[in-house]
């Protein structure tokens, strides 16, 4: 592959990714992720937002090949991850890492910080054995921790410090892409703010890209370049942060934004006293006849996706009947 072609490809390219969980007795199989497509560029953050059960985490896991997908394609650095042999995929893991929500359960309680941070370096032979200690110290500094603390165990750290260790572990092998699954939702608000600005400064320094899974929309607005809103396993809206927050075009996105409490007493009181219509977002596009945008997908065979602005799209699925 030539240099110029590599430049043109996004770092991560996901197309029509679907994940189906097998049926439980007497139930239909669950389509947890339904034909999801997005790109993430170098040093970019795409946020995945939506309610619990909308498929955010499953999408993140399927992208990392930690969850088998039922169809679709995931390309990282131009390579199709779904078709790689095991050992090849393992090598690709150097480029993609994972930060989980709960820093209490995602660190091994009986491994010191030094052991935790050295493990990925050894597995991927990232640095020669004699340089591991130096690299571990550098990682500690990178995430704002004192390198002299590497002999300690996870329980000796606060929640925020632990999440810094988890981030350092993810960045140990200098990945291009990190999935952050609710990385701050278990933390207090001041610690949250610190971790978010750490993630941002690491992006600026290292050029790492994030798939940032979160339910806190105010946080997403601070950190993300682009936002994908998920509902019922599908992306219902995708655009730049300015577009999705400034000009939300799917009724579910609007409902989600309206529901966020505002830390302003007068505004929030007004919000809570207003009566809001309870919208039912369930229901698929009618099999026959035009969708909300007037297009008959059954006839044209086109995807249920409509461009509403430059690189800003919205799905015609999951529109409440009252808005059709």
């Amino acid at each position, binding site marked *: 592959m030539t240099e110029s072609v590599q430049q043109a490809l996004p770092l991560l390219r996901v197309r029509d990714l679907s994940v189906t969980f097998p049926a439980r007795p007497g139930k239909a199989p669950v389509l947890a992720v339904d034909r999801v497509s997005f790109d993430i560029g170098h040093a970019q*953050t795409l946020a995945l937002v939506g*309610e*619990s059960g909308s498929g955010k985490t499953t999408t993140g896991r399927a992208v990392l090949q930690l969850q088998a997908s039922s169809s679709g394609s995931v390309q990282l650095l131009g390579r199709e991850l779904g078709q790689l042999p095991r050992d090849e995929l393992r090598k690709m893991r150097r480029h993609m890492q994972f930060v989980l929500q709960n820093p209490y359960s995602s660190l091994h309680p009986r491994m010191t910080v030094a052991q935790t941070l050295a493990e990925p370096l050894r597995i991927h032979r990232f640095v020669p054995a004699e340089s591991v200690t130096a690299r571990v110290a550098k990682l500690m500094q990178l995430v704002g921790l004192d390198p002299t603390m590497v002999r300690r165990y996870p329980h000796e750290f606060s*929640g925020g410090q632990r999440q810094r260790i988890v981030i350092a572990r993810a960045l140990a092998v200098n990945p291009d892409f990190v999935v952050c699954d609710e990385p701050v939702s278990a933390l*207090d*608000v*001041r610690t*949250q*703010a610190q971790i*978010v*600005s750490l993630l*941002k400064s690491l992006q600026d320094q290292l050029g790492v890209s994030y798939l940032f899974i979160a*339910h*806190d*929309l*105010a*946080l997403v*607005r*601070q*950190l*993300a*370049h682009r936002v994908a809103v998920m509902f019922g396993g599908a992306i219902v809206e995708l655009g730049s*942060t300015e577009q999705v*927050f400034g000009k939300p075009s799917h009724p579910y996105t609007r*409902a*989600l*934004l*309206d*529901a*966020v*409490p*505002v*830390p*302003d*007493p*007068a*505004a*929030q*009181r007004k*919000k*809570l*006293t207003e009566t*809001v219509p*309870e919208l039912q977002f369930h229901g698929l596009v009618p099999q026959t006849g035009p969708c909300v945008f007037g297009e008959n997908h059954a006839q044209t065979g086109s995807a249920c996706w409509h461009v509403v602005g430059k690189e800003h799209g919205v799905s015609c699925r999951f529109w409440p009947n009252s808005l059709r």
Partner: protein
Amino acid sequence: MSAPAALLQVRGLTAQFNRGDVASQVVKGISFDIGVGESVGFVGESGCGKSVTARALMRLAPEGSSVAWGGTVLFKGQDLLQVNERVMQDIRGRRIAMVFQDPMSSLNPVLTVGAQIEDIVRRHTGASASQARQRSVELLDLVGIRDAARRADDYPHQFSGGMRQRVLIAIAVSCQPDLLIADEPTTALDVTVQAQILRLLMRLRRELGMALMLITHDFGVIAGMVDRVHVMLDGSIVETGSVDALFANPQQAYTQALLAAVPRLDMAERLV
């Protein structure tokens, strides 16, 4: 605005946990009042003692711990830290009721939700089985559960998280308590569901005239729900004020730092 008559007067409340030889004081002598029908918020970070303070009012110790309470908790003239357990049992759930964060672990999984409401109604009001049944359906209807008569026969796992929290609220308000304590009532819920539960709590407070003690770490939640706020840090109340004054003009550096850390959707401050 004149202060409402005091329903609850807490003076010098302390809570000390004893684990083996180690004693740690997690509430360090705090004092506050809650008036009849008043809505008061407690905010602070995890470990600041806000939940333990709430549990003190019902004399509930966290599971597996031994706790020594100190100070006085005057509720309608009675010191709840002194009354015997029989009296306390009549107050818990009837005069003071509580809604917790996690609606699944607060419900009994093997009983229908109707049975769990009927249980507390019968315990506290001496209603007959059929009266209690009727009341449970009324309560489910009150908290916005559709088709309440049929849903009363469903088990907790058949409800979504938001609906379970509605059930818990129905149980809490079943005996028309004077004070409802809500400890992070929406933290486990999605934001759209959270908005519904907050609206429900506001409506019930208005309709039933209850006082509300709301404990949360979320400044957005506290903003619209309460009249007064207490900010807690390390077992003490560090700042108290009307919700408007506290948000507009926080006095303590700690409160200022907390408020400054809250990301806001309505302001275009961006890191990227």
